[in-house]
């Protein structure tokens, strides 16, 4: 193992400190060091978006970042969305509109939905499809994912 570096990252509002190898990927830090396994690894090649998180308020693919790059940053993962046991409107939308089948892509889809609605609270269908360009779903055919995001937009 190469030399480790101390990092401090605020994850879902909690400061998390660790000593990590520089080559540790952020997604591995979240899943293995912090046991936050809601963030998935799909392709591991920067394509599928299953690993999407928010880094300092912008969506990012955590398989394409080293944990050391996020030192001093704030991260939100899918686990940080629900507040006081209440589902986030997007989580509720995916539930109500059948936005998932196997669920593998879902955390990443929802995190991209969070970014989309933050930038554009009332997107058109075309804008929703562009907003989830970086996320692949192998099951649903996207139709219900679009409806789930529309559900959340209508609630907001």
């Amino acid at each position: 193992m190469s030399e480790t570096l101390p990092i401090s990252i605020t994850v879902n509002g909690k400061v998390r400190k660790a000593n990590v190898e520089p080559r540790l990927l952020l997604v591995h830090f979240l899943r293995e060091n912090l046991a936050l396994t809601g963030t998935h690894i799909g392709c591991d090649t920067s394509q599928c978006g299953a690993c999407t998180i928010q880094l300092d308020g912008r969506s990012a693919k955590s398989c394409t970042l080293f944990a050391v790059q996020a030192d001093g940053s704030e991260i939100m993962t899918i686990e940080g969305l629900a507040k006081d046991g209440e589902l986030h409107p997007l989580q509720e939308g995916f539930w109500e509109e059948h936005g998932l089948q196997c669920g593998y892509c879902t955390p990443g889809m929802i995190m991209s939905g969070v970014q989309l609605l933050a930038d554009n609270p009332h997107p058109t269908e075309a804008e929703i499809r562009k907003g989830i360009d970086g996320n692949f779903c192998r099951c649903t055919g996207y139709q219900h994912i679009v409806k789930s995001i529309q559900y959340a937009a209508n609630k907001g």
Partner: protein
Amino acid sequence: MIPTQFEYKRASSLDDAIALLQASKGDGKLLAGGHSLVPLMKLRLSEPGVLIDIARIPMLSGISEKDGKVEVGATTTHHAVATSELLQRLCPVLSDAAGEIGDPQVRNRGTLGGSLAHSDPAADYPAVILALNAEVHLKGPGGWRAVKGDDFFQAMFTVDMAEDEVIVGVQVVPQKVAGYAKLHQKASHYAIVGVCAVLDVAGGTINSARVAVTGASSHAQRLTEVENALAGKPLNQATIDAAAALAGATLEDVNADIHASAAYRKAMVKVFTRRALEKAASRA
């Protein structure tokens, strides 16, 4: 996939980054958005011993206007370029192209300087930098230098930049009458073909034009046959159609891959040249 081991250093300033590059004696690489370098490292196609993170150097990021020119810092993200009110007003084609790069997550991390340094044959910015006749500004141990796009992009993944130089940013004389049109590879969104057209129009006549293509061959290139066909002509659909029909005639070694054959790419160079010219004309 786990990259090989490396040392990680965060540069505190531009000069610090240059000093760290020099100290690494050829074994160091700059890390900006990481959206070209990290995938390569995970595949172990790149195995730098030292990564020098420049993403948080304040002076390298941002978009500003000075003396009629616009400067975009190297670590400005694609998202920031795409959504810049200043660029949308003064030089909208740069925002258009940035907004067509990859997907939202890629645009949130990837940077202008990283894209230019990497110079992927299918990257969007190089065509725009060429067509806008923009200058790339670099700094190294020997000081500053400015390179025009025409001289910067030399070959596939090869640009006019020394191992210990850092791209500081891009300077452009803003031009409004310009358009970018791109055929996306549907999964990655890299350009199968991307064309940028910039027109200098006065009184309905095209004084001169600069048109460049990316995705079609080893690196972004000017389409001089199109430029020549436009110069001195009235700006109308007939001129556009006639010029676009010539596009790609001088291109050598047209790319062929699983996404598009060389013949298809050649055909698309004409189509997307026409669309880029139409977009530019709509802003005249």
